[in-house]
C-alpha cells in the first residue's frame, strides 16, 4: 500500500502519562527525604541537594563553595581519597558533584544491591570530611590549572566576562570556579567554616529515585543520615532576598581580545528573572520561539538563513534571585557585528513589530508539552526534575500542572512577557574575538564605549 505523500500524517490522540509520584518525609534533624519508585533497571540514583552554591561564596573568596564540594571525596572518616574511590569503583557507582550559583548537588548512581553501602559512603563524605591541608592545597592547584586552561577557551572567557559585566559585585557576579586571586585566598579553615555553614540537615534534601519501593529507598537514606545533628548555625548563609539589585553595567559592549581568533564568541543579554516569577511559563514559551530550539527565530536567522554560525541559542537562566537572559553563539569573525545587530533586532521584533504568530506559538507550546514525558525516562532524570522542586520550593503538583499551564497561554501572553522581560535597549554584549579585525565594525553598532576586559 502506497503512503499518501501529499500531506504529513496528523498526530493521533495524545497518549496519557502519569508523572512519577514523589513521596516526601523528613527526619527529626530537618533533613527532607524524597523518594520515587522507578523500576525499569536495577539502578538507583541519589541526589543530595543543598541550597548553598557559588552565590554564597564570601567576598574575595569566589570559588569557596566549589572547592568545598570538590573536597568531599578527598577523604572522610578513616578513609583516604583513594579508599573512597576504590569503594565507588567496587559498587559500580558514579559520583558526580555539581556546584551552581544556587546549590550544591552531589549525585550517586549505583547498582540496586549496593544502595545502602553507596548512600552510607556519600553520607560519610558529607558529614565527616577530613579536609586535610595537603589535600586542600592539591585540589586548589588543580583548580588553578583549570582556570589557566580557561584562558584559551572562548566559551569559558565569555561566560566569565558576561557574569562580571552584568552582575559585578553581586553574588552572581562570578563563576563557581572563582578566579586565580580568590582561589589563592582560600585556606583549609575557610573550607571547614563554609562546610559547617552550608552542609546542614535543614538545608538539605536527599532524593532517591530508582529500583526500590518508597519504604526501602527512604529507609536506606534515613539510616545514613539519622545521626546528623548540628548546633544551630552561628552565621547562617545569606539567602537570595539579601542579594540586592545588581548595578547596571557601565558599558554595554565588552571585548576580550583574542588575536587571530577564527570566530567570535558572543553573549548578549541582561539580568532577567528569578525562578519563582509568575511569568515563568510564558517566558519559557517565549524563549522556545525566540532562541530555545532549532527552529527558533534566532537560530533560523543566524544559522539557516545567514550561515554565520553552527548554532545560536537563547536561554533564561532562572535562579533563586533574578538570573540572566542571554543569547549564546560562536560566529565567524567577519560576521560579528552583523550577528549582534540581527540578535538585538530579533529581541526587539518579538516585543511588538513582529509579534509571536499563532503558528509559532503552536510549535513552541507543543515542543514543551508533547515532549514533556521524555524528561522522565531515567532515574537520574526523575531525581533531577524533583531536585528543581526542592530547590525552588515549587508546589507538589508542579509536574502535572506544567502542561495545562503552558497550553493556556495565548499569543498576547507571550508578547506581554516579551515586553516586560526582554530589554534590548539595555542588553549588554560580550565579544571574545580578534579586536583588530572586528573593532571597526563593532563601532557601527551604536552601543556606546567599548570596555576591554582582560581576564587573568
Amino acid at each position, binding site marked *: *500500500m*502506497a*503512503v499518501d*505523500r*501529499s500531506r*504529513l*500524517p496528523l*498526530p*493521533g490522540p*495524545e*497518549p*496519557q*502519562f502519569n508523572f512519577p509520584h514523589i513521596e516526601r518525609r523528613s527526619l527529626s534533624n530537618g533533613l527532607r527525604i524524597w523518594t520515587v519508585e522507578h523500576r*525499569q*533497571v536495577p*539502578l538507583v540514583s541519589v541526589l543530595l541537594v543543598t541550597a548553598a552554591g557559588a552565590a554564597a561564596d564570601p567576598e574575595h573568596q569566589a570559588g569557596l563553595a566549589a572547592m568545598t564540594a570538590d573536597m568531599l*571525596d578527598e577523604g572522610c572518616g578513616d578513609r583516604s*581519597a*583513594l579508599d573512597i*574511590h*576504590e569503594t565507588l*569503583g*567496587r559498587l*559500580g*557507582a*558514579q559520583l558526580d558533584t555539581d556546584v551552581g550559583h544556587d546549590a550544591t548537588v552531589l549525585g550517586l*548512581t549505583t*547498582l540496586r544491591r549496593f544502595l545502602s553501602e553507596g548512600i552510607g559512603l556519600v553520607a560519610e563524605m558529607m558529614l565527616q570530611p577530613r579536609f586535610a591541608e595537603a589535600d586542600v592545597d*592539591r585540589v586548589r*592547584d*588543580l583548580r588553578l*590549572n*583549570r582556570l*589557566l*586552561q580557561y*584562558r*584559551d*577557551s*572562548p566559551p569559558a572567557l565569555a561566560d566569565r566576562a558576561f557574569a562580571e559585566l552584568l552582575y559585578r559585585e553581586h553574588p552572581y557576579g562570578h563563576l563557581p570556579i572563582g578566579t586565580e586571586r580568590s582561589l589563592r585566598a582560600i585556606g583549609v579553615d575557610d573550607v571547614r567554616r563554609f562546610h559547617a555553614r552550608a552542609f546542614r540537615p535543614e538545608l538539605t534534601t536527599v532524593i532517591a529515585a530508582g529500583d526500590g519501593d518508597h519504604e526501602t529507598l527512604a529507609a536506606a537514606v534515613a539510616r545514613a543520615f539519622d545521626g546528623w545533628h548540628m548546633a544551630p548555625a552561628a552565621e547562617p548563609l545569606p539567602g537570595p532576598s539579601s542579594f540586592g539589585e545588581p548595578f547596571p553595567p557601565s558599558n554595554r559592549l565588552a571585548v576580550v581580545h583574542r588575536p587571530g*581568533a*577564527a*570566530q567570535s*564568541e558572543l553573549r548578549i543579554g541582561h539580568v532577567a528573572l528569578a525562578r519563582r516569577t509568575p511569568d515563568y511559563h510564558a517566558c519559557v514559551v517565549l524563549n522556545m520561539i525566540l532562541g530555545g530550539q*532549532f*527552529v527558533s527565530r534566532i537560530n533560523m536567522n543566524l*544559522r539557516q538563513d545567514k550561515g*554565520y*554560525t*553552527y548554532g545560536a541559542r537563547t536561554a533564561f537562566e532562572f535562579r533563586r534571585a533574578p538570573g540572566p537572559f542571554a543569547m549564546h553563539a*560562536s560566529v565567524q569573525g567577519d560576521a560579528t557585528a552583523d550577528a549582534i545587530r540581527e540578535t538585538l533586532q530579533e529581541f526587539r521584533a518579538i516585543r511588538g513589530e513582529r509579534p509571536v504568530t499563532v503558528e509559532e506559538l503552536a*510549535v513552541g507550546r*507543543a*515542543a514543551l508539552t*508533547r*515532549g514533556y*514525558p*521524555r524528561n522522565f*525516562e*531515567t*532515574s537520574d532524570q526523575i531525581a533531577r526534575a524533583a531536585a528543581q522542586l526542592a530547590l525552588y520550593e515549587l508546589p507538589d503538583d508542579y509536574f502535572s500542572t506544567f502542561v495545562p499551564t503552558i497550553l493556556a497561554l495565548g499569543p498576547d501572553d507571550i508578547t506581554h512577557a516579551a515586553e516586560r522581560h526582554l530589554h534590548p535597549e539595555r542588553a549588554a554584549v560580550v565579544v571574545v574575538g580578534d579586536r583588530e579585525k572586528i573593532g571597526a565594525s563593532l563601532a557601527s553598532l551604536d552601543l556606546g564605549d567599548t570596555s576591554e576586559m582582560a581576564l587573568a
Partner: protein
Amino acid sequence: MDIPFTKHTLQNGLDVVVHEDRAVPIVAVNVWYHVGSKDEVPGRTGFAHLFEHLMFEGSKHHDRGYFQPLQAAGAALNGSTNADRTNYWEVVPSNALDLALWMESDRMGYLLPALTDTKFENQRDVVLNERRQNYENRPYGLAGMAIVSALYPEDHPYHWMTIGAAEDIRAAHIDDVRAFFRKYYHPGNASIALAGDIDAETGLRLADEYFGDLPGGERPPRVQVPPAAVTGEVRLLLEDRVELPRLYLAWHSPALFDAGDAELDLLGDVLAGGKTSRLYRSLVYEQRIATEVAASQNSRELGSFFQVVATAAPGRTLAEVERAVARALHDVATTGPTAGEMERGLAQAESHFLSRLQTVGGFGGKSDQLNAYNTYLGNPGFFSQDLDRYRSATAEALRDAAARWLRPDARVALSVVPRGAAALGLDGSTQVAVS
C-alpha cells in the same frame, strides 16, 4: 540483561528491528546508514558529514526544514556522522510515530529532488563554522587530526577526521551529493530500529508501509584496507594556543569486537578511570606532574586506536610525564591488573551496560544500540554477548593486550605545546602543521 527484539528485512533490503518498552509513551526511531568518513576519498574529506547536514534541509514531499513539523509534534531529533556510519534519530510521543516514519522515509527515498545550490552553499558555511568552533578555535582542537594522519597512511580512510579538511569542504560540489546519495543512501545500506511504546507487529507493518515501496540498491562494497601499522615511535610536535603542554600517545589496536578490544577498553579504566586508576594516582595525585589524564580504546570497524592523554602541570615537562606513563604501562604489561582492579573494572562495565538500558532513543539509547549491533555484526541481539566479552576478560588477558599493543616502539607521541615553547615537547619531535 538484554534488549529483546524482532527483526525483519524488507524486500528492498531495509533491516527493521523493533523493541517494545511501554514505560513512557514515546517511540524512538533510529536509522543507520552504513557510510561514514571512511567511505570518502582524499581531496573530498568531510563530505559524509556535510551530507548529513543536507538530510535536514527538506525532501521532495516536504521541501522545508526537517525540524519544524517534528518539534511541533513534541519530538527530539538529531543525527551524527563518524568514520564508520551515519545515524539519524527522532524520539516522538507515540501518537506522532507515523509522522517520524513519513519524514525519515521521505528523505531516504526523495532527498535529491529537493536539493538546491542555495541549501548546499548555506550548509557548507554552517559546517565550516562548526569546524572553526569545535576544532580551530578550541584548545588542543587540532591534535586529533595530527594523530590520525600519523597513525594511518595517506590512502587509508582513517587518515583524516570526520570533520574533514577545510579546503576539501570548500571544494565539495553539489554533484558529489547526488552521487553519494545514490550509492549509500538507500534501503539496502540502511537499518531502522523502533523502540518504545510499540509492539513488534505494528512496528513491522508501519515500517513496511512507509519504507517498503522505496527502491532498493546495491549494497556498496565495504572498504578493504590492509591493517595499518606504525613502525618505531613517531614523535610529533604541534604548537597551539594553549597554556599547558599536553602529551598524546596513540597505538593501533584491535578492531571493534575483535579479540583484545574489550580487554583494552577495560585497561583504559584501569589506567585512567577514577582517582584510584594507575595514571591518575601516580601522575596527578602522588607526583602531581599532571593536571589530568585520560585513556581510552577508540573502537572502529577497520581497526581501533588506543590513546593516553596527559596534561602537564605548570612547570613540568612532557618528558617527565612520558616517563611516568611509560612506567605505568610497563608495570601493567608485566604483572597485569590486580584482583581489586579487575573487580572494579567489571563492576563499572556492568553498571555501564545497565545504564545503557535506561533510554529507548537518542545517541546510545536502546534503538541506537540495536542498530549498532545490526549494522556491524548483522545481529541486533548482541547486547548480552557484548557484556560477556567484558565478564570473561581476565587479568592475564589485559596484561597480554597491554604487552602486545601498547609498545613504546610502535606508537605516535604527539606533544601539543604553547606557541613558541617547542622545548617543552618530547625530544626529537618533528613539528607538524595542521589547520
